[in-house]
């Protein structure tokens, strides 16, 4: 992602939306499923980076440490995603056990 684009998007976000809704509160459209989807997407992205780095190391264009760091990054992102998923399932089961 280019930095200019990031800065641009940061500057155009209004501090308070016109509706007066809390900007940090959940927006109606972006649910938990979407953020979980984004997390899975970042796992996929770091995985591909790790694959590229290892391929680069094998064919001699990349460094060993770059490949290892990419692998670690992919591993940590996966762990984070698994933790978030565990918490989600845990919360779901908690609610399912609730007597009605």
């Amino acid at each position, binding site marked *: 992602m280019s*930095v200019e684009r*990031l*800065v641009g998007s*940061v500057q155009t976000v209004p501090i308070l939306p016109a509706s007066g809704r809390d900007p940090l509160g959940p927006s109606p459209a972006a649910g938990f499923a979407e953020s979980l989807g984004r997390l899975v997407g970042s796992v996929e992205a770091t995985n591909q980076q790790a694959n590229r780095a290892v391929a680069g190391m094998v064919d001699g264009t990349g*460094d060993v*440490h*770059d490949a290892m*760091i990419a692998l*670690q*990054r992919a591993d*940590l*992102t996966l*762990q*984070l995603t698994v*933790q*978030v998923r*565990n*918490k989600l399932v845990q919360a779901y089961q908690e609610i399912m056990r609730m007597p009605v």
Partner: protein
Amino acid sequence: MPTLNAALDASASGLAAERMRIEVAVSNLANAESTRGADGRPYRRRDVVLASQPVESFDSALGRTGAVGVRVASIVEDQAPERRRYEPSHPDADKDGYVGLPNVDPAEEMVDMVSAARAYQANLTAISLIRDLIQRALELGRG
């Protein structure tokens, strides 16, 4: 994982820079006796010039000071005069019988190499520390 990623990138740039220092020191050692290079002159000792460079991160995009990495700015040739040795039978000897040898001091290169290797190790230690910190933070979720 945006928070410690910039620190990881800075350490990775340090690893790349130290690897280049080791590469250059090894080239100097290997060519300590090379009497002809690409230009026909004796090999000249090379030196790495390092420059700091802010890591592209969320902080730097917002104009805040974030992690600062390092990059190899250039590789320069040492302009010290070449060593001369009397050896009239050598094919590269001049008309007085002296051969021009590279301005490489093997002891100095060894010291450079050890210092670069130690710096590389220091960066590796920093990376494994950052990895451990992220992992410990993730352990907050298990419980």
